[in-house]
């Protein structure tokens, strides 16, 4: 049991700055054996709460008690940390041992256990996490997912009762993320662990028994996942998003006026069933409404409409209503590839191999041919190690092309003399670009690229300002980049590449690690670039964001081009996606689940909104084809009334305690459309 009793904590500020309040007056109790998730935007105090749990931080006010032991008592601290093991975010920065086995042994050795016992625990932890084959590997030779499994193994060797995951899945690709969550749930089951999980991934929240949403160091919302995601507006205003299937259920429920059922739609299958039943009801309800309408039309004599058009009318009215509740995204629909526009990147038969660990031969790229046209947004997706990063590093000559040709803006990149001028025109942003900031102020850092490229001071100043404005960091220009938050640093780093005013911008996972609202905002800001004729190439694992933002998607598999086409071409086939080890975006999975119910449904949707629309259209089409049967109207009226009563009841259980004054700060349109990480399969199978 972890108890927080009115806990407050502030980080000591630098000399000239005030202390930064991270947690204010937080109280809760986490019972043994439960699975609790903490959500909240970047900087909401989640990690601080985690570190207060095992005495890595001590509260300024209030008490933190773990299994009856106060964390501020020195005598308890080792026992508390043994019981409450912690897995951190960055896989690289928590491995202490020089081999896998040594790292697992580190904790037990610190406890002073006999060497025999330590060895036995190492063996057991390796088995429990499926890492036995890697026993003597060195950490650098592991993938990100394996490193996190190792971190879990190292905690298990301490025989903990509580496992605290501090954004442990944030830096993993979707499949490693799923594998890690599977492992965690399995361990929880086998060892009756208490799980405390801090995350940005809403699907992971669905696995929990109870969810806390933090905002500015306070608990802004709490309840079961069903209760929390029932509070649609509240969740969005807290910088979070709804899992896709829940959003579709909300939208359908709003659209056709069938009461939302929070408990039911928490699981993916439940949501599908909910939508199916609701739509079955609405085809009946058209009659029900129809009869109401008739009563009214008897009073206003000129209103006489046939059943058919009435039903139709209802659906289009509801579609309009959806748009009020959930404003449309600024997202763009893919534009057809215009043959007339110039080709800016032309790759022909490119292959690339390098020498890997211990002299192994790694064929990273194999006969890649590709044309990118001016002004398009090209997405590159593929499993980890499929060659995405290697490919984009060819676009500005970071990796010289050895076999095949790369022509960028008409210049052959094997001509090394032109590399400098090409780098002015092609901006390349690596993962976690915030790590590359180095100047004293934000302004100087953004100015680095244009200065290096020989622009005059006036031009530099102009480009810096323009780039900073576009990314919304112009108010930070005089600050030191090292004082900013992670999200701000990310934006400064991107501005630093934009300042060179590249004609082609290549980004590797630009939104990784950001909260849902931050992710969406960043993509919106980047999308404005293409209006000015720039070409955008985005590498990402986030299939939904890619479907929504890209004109074309290139799928890489084992160093080859598996397919290139419009998002619809790529995403329509779930079999193809799975074959390329990619996630099936949840909106598409939702449509697929309903495919048997509606013949005209199609197999592709960009996001929850698009999916809702397609479902409604398909339902409408079906109804046109076979007019609904007559049913007992009063019975249905009763059904709906009682259901909506229940609905109110549910809403009350999860009271949204957001203070009114900061509700409007995040405008609804900014948070509305979340790109949902596709961790869904897990969510639904465990829901």
């Amino acid at each position: 049991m972890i108890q927080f009793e009115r806990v407050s904590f502030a980080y000591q500020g630098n000399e000239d700055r005030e202390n930064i309040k991270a947690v204010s007056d937080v109280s809760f109790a986490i019972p043994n054996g439960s699975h609790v998730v903490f959500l909240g935007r970047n900087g909401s105090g989640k990690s601080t709460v985690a570190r207060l749990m095992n005495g890595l931080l001590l509260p300024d006010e209030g008490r933190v008690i773990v299994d009856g032991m106060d964390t501020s008592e020195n005598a308890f601290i080792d026992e508390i940390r043994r019981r409450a093991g912690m897995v951190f975010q960055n896989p690289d920065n928590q491995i202490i041992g020089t081999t896998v086995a040594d790292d697992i042994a580190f904790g037990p050795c610190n406890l002073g256990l006999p060497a025999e016992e330590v060895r036995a625990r190492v063996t057991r932890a390796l088995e429990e996490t499926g890492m036995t084959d890697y026993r003597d590997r060195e950490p650098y030779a592991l993938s990100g997912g394996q490193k996190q499994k190792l971190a879990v193994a190292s905690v298990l060797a301490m025989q903990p009762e509580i496992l605290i995951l501090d954004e442990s899945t944030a830096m993993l690709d979707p499949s490693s993320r799923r594998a890690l969550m599977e492992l965690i749930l399995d361990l929880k089951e086998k060892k009756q662990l208490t799980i405390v999980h801090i995350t940005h991934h809403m699907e992971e929240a669905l696995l929990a028994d109870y969810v806390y949403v933090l905002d500015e160091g306070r608990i802004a919302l709490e309840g079961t996942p069903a209760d929390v995601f029932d509070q649609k507006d509240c969740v969005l205003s807290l910088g979070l998003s709804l899992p896709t299937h829940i959003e579709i259920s909300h939208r359908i429920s709003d659209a056709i006026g069938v009461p939302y059922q929070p408990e039911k739609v928490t699981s993916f299958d439940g949501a599908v069933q909910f939508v199916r039943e609701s739509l079955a009801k609405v085809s009946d309800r058209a009659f029900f409404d129809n009869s109401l309408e008739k009563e009214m039309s008897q009073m206003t004599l000129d209103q006489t409409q046939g059943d058919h058009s009435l039903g139709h009318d209802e659906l289009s009215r509801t579609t309009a209503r959806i748009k009020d509740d959930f404003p449309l995204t600024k997202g763009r629909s893919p534009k057809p590839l215009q043959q007339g526009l110039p080709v800016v990147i032309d790759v022909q038969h490119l292959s690339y191999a390098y020498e890997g660990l211990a002299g192994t031969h790694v064929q990273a790229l194999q006969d890649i041919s590709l044309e990118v046209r001016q002004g398009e947004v090209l997405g590159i997706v593929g499993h980890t190690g499929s060659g995405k990063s290697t490919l984009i590093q060819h676009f500005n000559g970071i990796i010289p092309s050895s076999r095949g040709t790369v022509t960028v803006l008409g210049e052959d990149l094997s001509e090394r003399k032109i590399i400098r001028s090409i780098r002015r025109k092609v901006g390349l942003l690596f993962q976690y670009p915030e790590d590359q900031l180095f100047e004293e102020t934000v302004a100087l850092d953004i100015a680095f690229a244009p200065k290096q490229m020989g622009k005059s001071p006036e031009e530099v100043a102009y480009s810096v300002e323009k780039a900073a404005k576009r990314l919304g960091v112009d108010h930070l220009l005089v600050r030191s980049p090292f004082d900013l938050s992670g999200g701000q640093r990310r934006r400064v780093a991107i501005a630093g590449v934009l300042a060179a005013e590249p004609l082609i911008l290549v980004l590797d996972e630009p939104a990784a690690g950001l909260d849902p609202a931050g992710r969406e905002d960043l993509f919106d800001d980047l999308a404005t670039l293409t209006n000015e004729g720039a070409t955008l190439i985005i590498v990402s694992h986030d299939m939904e964001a890619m479907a929504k933002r890209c004109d074309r998607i290139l799928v890489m598999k084992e160093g080859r081009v598996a397919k290139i086409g419009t998002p619809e071409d790529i995403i329509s086939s779930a079999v193809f996606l799975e074959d390329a080890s990619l996630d099936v975006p949840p909106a598409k999975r939702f449509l697929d689940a309903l495919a048997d119910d509606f013949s005209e449904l199609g197999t592709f949707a960009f996001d929850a909104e698009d999916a809702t629309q397609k479902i409604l259209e398909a339902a409408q089409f079906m109804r046109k084809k076979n007019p609904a049967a007559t049913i007992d109207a009063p019975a249905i009226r009763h059904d709906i009334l009682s259901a909506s009563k229940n609905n109110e009841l549910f809403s009350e259980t999860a009271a949204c305690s957001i203070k009114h004054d900061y509700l409007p700060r995040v405008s609804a349109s900014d948070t509305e459309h979340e790109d949902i990480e596709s961790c869904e399969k897990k969510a639904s199978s465990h829901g």
Partner: protein
Amino acid sequence: MGKRSLLGRSIPGTSFIHRLDARVKFIAAILLMIATLSSKSPIVLAVISLWAMVLVALSHIRVRIVLRSVRPIIFLIIFAMVIHFFTVRGTPLFRVGSIVISLEGLTSGLLTALRISLMVIQTSLLLTLTTTPIAIADAMERLLLPLKHLHFPVQEFSMMMSIAMRFVPTLLDEATRLMKAQSSRGADFDTGGLMRRARGLVSILVPLFVSSFRRADDLAVAMEARCYGGTSSRTTLYAMKLQRRDYLFLTAAVLISAFVFLWQG
């Protein structure tokens, strides 16, 4: 990506050399290093070369990989060799401009190159290639243990060493990544004027330092979370006990060294 440095990266295996006690390898490496460097006569060097071949055979590591360990200092070797060519006087062989190259110069240059290469090959065979950094750190800790009586924090020191070694590959990867990122922003590392290059270097070093500090912070927290520096005294995991092969190998190393010193008087 690209070619990986061998620095701090051992190749796992179960050969005779792999299974030797790290302390024995450490001491043998130092002995052989001194012996090799002080060997002058071609006969002695021939014996050491033979011995090095035996080591390679015993380690089951491919010759190509062993030879690669010389690559990082290839320039040093060539430099030392050329210096000998030009400076050692003796029977003139031919002249390059005003400089006379002698037979003695040529032989002594080649022998020097051989000497340095042999030294590097032996040390990397015994230590970096076949011994994990943690085993080296452990061995150092054991060997330094007597210093504990002089209040030298031996355990902390060896923990520090092993963490440093653990992070060498991570930092190398990060440096490569930063170099690519900053080149994409127009930074120069090998062309352009001195100022440009200096700025290029700064753009790598500052973030590398900052991130090292952040890593150090994170790591300290992670260690604390796993009860490091707590009340109980740490378990020493690897009880090191010398085996017959260890004595055998140490004897061989001592004999080789003794031979070198005795032969040369």
